[in-house]
């Protein structure tokens, strides 16, 4: 049995992801120069999340990790989201 | 105002009774069951355990659901009570309370201010709470109200004093060395007496050195009788040889008018040895005429002509 739960990713795959990340960086800079009002921040966050997912799934090999680890990451993100979200019950309604 | 409309005391105490009642029942129930089991199934009487199922779904569901219902009812009832605490009657008298290290100052809409909170009996009072320095908390146990004084924002409580009397008022949020002496009272007066007090003198007499000392909270830390508090006593201040720390250097100076004035405006400039550097600056907090009165008073006969030695 292979000692690693995931195989070595090909150079082609990694560079493709890198190119995508650069393109997304370009897009986010471009979008930020448009005046979308409150949408700007959500667009920026959306693109950043997309970029982050690419890094996590490919560079960090999460795609090939067992489901347990994906679940753990989900729990961590959910915790962070609830910390920020619940705080807003205070700051938005004060 | 004989039949009072509604007080914060009732709002809170009803919730107290409800939760305490249920909590006491639960505690007695749990403890009694435990004791009965321990006695009944003690190894002396009951040397062999008898088999019984190690889980029972219906039982576990019941004792999950019942506490759920109980706590939800508690939540609901307590929220109703809380709503009454934040629902200020529209006719409430408006007072502002300012917390500072380490005293309270209450000011009324007509400009009157005081270090005690005077209120008319039976009438709702809405206290707007602000802080000059750190967190404080306005707490009147008799009326079951409490709210933090937070620098930068204004918070509120309201209450209605049910009877004539004097009620304790505490600072409940830790605020430093004299936290526990940030104590004053709510004086509930009959309506007529209160109005008379409110109109008596809108501004305290300019001549009143002692009044100024208490209004600006000086006596919270500096005694007038030579006893040691957070800061040095005012007794025998004028002309005293004082060891101070100026810019990190030790030196000895003789307390004169300039020194007294400087100590009020820049307390850390010449710090008396042996005392913590905790006094806030009063720059911009005291009108010039009042400052002059204070300095004159502190350097005047009754305080400086003191018996030598502490």
């Amino acid at each position, binding site marked *: 049995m292979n000692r690693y739960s995931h195989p070595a990713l090909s150079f082609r795959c990694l560079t493709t992801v890198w190119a995508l990340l650069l393109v997304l960086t370009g897009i986010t800079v471009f979008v930020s120069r448009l005046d979308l009002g409150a949408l700007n921040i959500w667009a920026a966050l959306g693109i950043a999340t997309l970029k982050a997912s690419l890094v996590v799934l490919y560079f960090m090999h999460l795609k090939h990790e067992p489901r347990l680890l994906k679940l753990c990451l989900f*729990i*961590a993100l959910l*915790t962070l989201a*609830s910390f920020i979200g*619940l*705080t807003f*019950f*205070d*700051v*938005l*309604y*004060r | 105002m004989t039949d009072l409309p509604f007080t914060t005391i009732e709002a*809170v105490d009803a*919730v107290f009774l409800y*939760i305490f009642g249920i909590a006491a029942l639960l*505690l007695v129930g*749990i403890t009694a069951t*435990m004791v009965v*089991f*321990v006695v009944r*199934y003690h*190894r002396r009487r*009951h*040397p062999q*355990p008898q088999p019984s199922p*190690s*889980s029972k779904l219906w*039982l*576990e569901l019941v*004792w*999950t659901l019942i*506490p*759920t219902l109980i*706590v939800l009812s*508690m*939540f609901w*009832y*307590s*929220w*109703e009570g*809380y709503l009454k605490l934040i629902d200020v009657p529209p006719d409430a008298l408006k007072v502002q309370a300012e917390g500072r290290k380490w005293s309270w100052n209450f000011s009324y809409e007509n400009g009157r201010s005081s270090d005690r909170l005077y209120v008319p009996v039976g009438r709702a009072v809405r206290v707007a709470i602000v802080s000059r*320095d*750190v*967190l404080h908390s306005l707490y009147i*146990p008799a009326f*079951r*109200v*409490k*709210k933090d004084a*937070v*620098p930068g924002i204004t*918070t509120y409580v309201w209450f209605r004093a049910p009877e004539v009397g004097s009620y304790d008022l505490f600072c409940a*949020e*830790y*605020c430093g*060395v*004299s*936290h*526990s*002496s940030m104590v004053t009272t709510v004086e509930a007066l009959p309506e007529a007496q209160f109005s008379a007090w409110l109109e008596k003198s809108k501004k305290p007499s300019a001549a009143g050195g002692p009044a100024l000392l208490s209004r600006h909270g000086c006596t919270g830390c500096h005694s007038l009788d030579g006893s040691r508090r957070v800061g040095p006593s005012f007794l025998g201040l004028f002309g005293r040889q004082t060891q101070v720390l100026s810019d990190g250097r030790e030196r000895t100076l003789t307390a004169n008018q300039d020194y007294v004035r400087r100590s009020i405006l820049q307390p850390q400039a010449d710090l008396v040895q042996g005392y913590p550097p905790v006094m806030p600056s009063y720059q911009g907090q005291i009108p010039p005429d009042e400052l002059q009165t204070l300095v004159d008073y502190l350097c005047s006969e009754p305080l400086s002509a003191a018996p030598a030695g502490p």
Partner: protein
Amino acid sequence: MAKQNDRGFLQASDRQPLLFDWIFSVDHKRIGLLYLYSVGAFFLAGVALGVLLRLELIAPGPTIATAQTYNALFTLHGVVMIFLFIIPGIPGAFGNLMLPLQIGARDVAFPRLNLLSWWLYILGAFMALTSLFSGGGPPDTGWTFYVPFSSETPTNVSLALLAVFIIGFSSILTGVNFVTTIHRLRAPGMHWGRLPLFVWSLYATAWVQILATPVLGITMVLLMVERLIGLGLFDPGRGGDPILYQHLFWIYSHPAVYIMILPAMGVVSEIIPVFARKPTFGYKAIAASSVAIAAAGSLVWGHHMFVSGMSDTAILVFSLLTFLVAIPSAVKVFNWVATLYRGSISLEPPMLFALAFVFLFSIGGLTGLILGSAATDVHVHDTHFVVGHFHYVMFGGTGFAFFAALHYWLPKVFGRMYNMKAATIAWAIIFVGFNLLYFPMMLVGLHGMPRRYYDYLPQFQQLNVIATAGSWVLAAGLLLMFVNLYRGMRRGAAAGSNPWQAATLEWVLTSPPPAESFSQPPQVTHGPYDLQQAGKP
């Protein structure tokens, strides 16, 4: 030769000086003992500080200390007890000692990281102590470090903050270690349904340590930067918001309460079935409620802030969530009591402490309802009622569970038994002293005496005198207990490998356990509470 083997992992090696043999050991049992000794020492220090505090409060006005000293004393009492005793206490000491044994592992997943955790803990403790004697003198902010007071006070707060940060880091590493260990190193046959409940509770705790502690870390860093260069993130004069500090602080510090109490619940869940000779009632419910408490407990921090000036909407949400977190705790209590049903109960010292835990924790939990309720919290918030309440939870709960664990597991660790009679007497004295100390505190709080008061009005004196007297009784009981345990561990009769006839894996080994506890992972064949199978893996 046989005599040497008796000492198991305690046996000194000839390779290096004895002290190095311990403080650089990567064996989980030795690290566990290092934790046990250090948290024990800090506990005694905390008790001494507490007794001094109570002595000051025996009468209004100055009694034994100045106001500044008193404020430093309660700050120190809080910091020592919370960060140096309760948080690392059960997981650090008994978690390290027992977790690998209970799942049949050779050690934790990262033994060297484990040693690093202890060293960081000691470093943090050392810095906390240094903060007393350097800079502007002992911190006087209370363990909560609320701004703006903490960013202004000239006392040596910055070093204390750094100490807390480092101890937090140690706690995170322990959490990482435990989660990995439980996931990866269970012996064959030790599936999730066979995990001892203590392990379940450590698992839930470890997750809270990993996810909540860093928030405290960043908060301490921000406060340090605030003191250093006046960044203004919490300073209203510069656009900051002091209430946000409280959010960040309690985002960690409320879950921290569950870091403190969950392992304690785990200990009690181990002890009750053994001494009632009955399998735990509702194993799954207890395990699930540990996880539920950890999850829901991370969402209720706002109930520390009902009078802080936080929005009423937030009060509504946090009050509701707080009431919900009471449910899994209640379920646990019911399960423990139900485990006693039709058992054959023997009241040996571990069981006495465990039963006292159930009673005292119930009081702590039920008075917590008063604090979770928005209307009543307004009255009792920041009074001695709160002080009494959390001592019922933290001391009556975690403290008693810690004592239960001492009496339950020390015979395993040292292979010797303490004097049962003395232990029972100590238990009784501690129980009486405890209630004498903390019950009057709750009453005086209901009458309106605020906490952190150096001086108080004369009407509060009677109850304060009772509480202070209680502190002496309690201290005497603790002294007797520790002396008895110490004598037992040194000179007690041999305990045998399984004195309580328990069925979890650690009792399969000799007492003390051998240096290589499970060099070959055992094949686990039964659940943790199949008491008929006691002594078999």
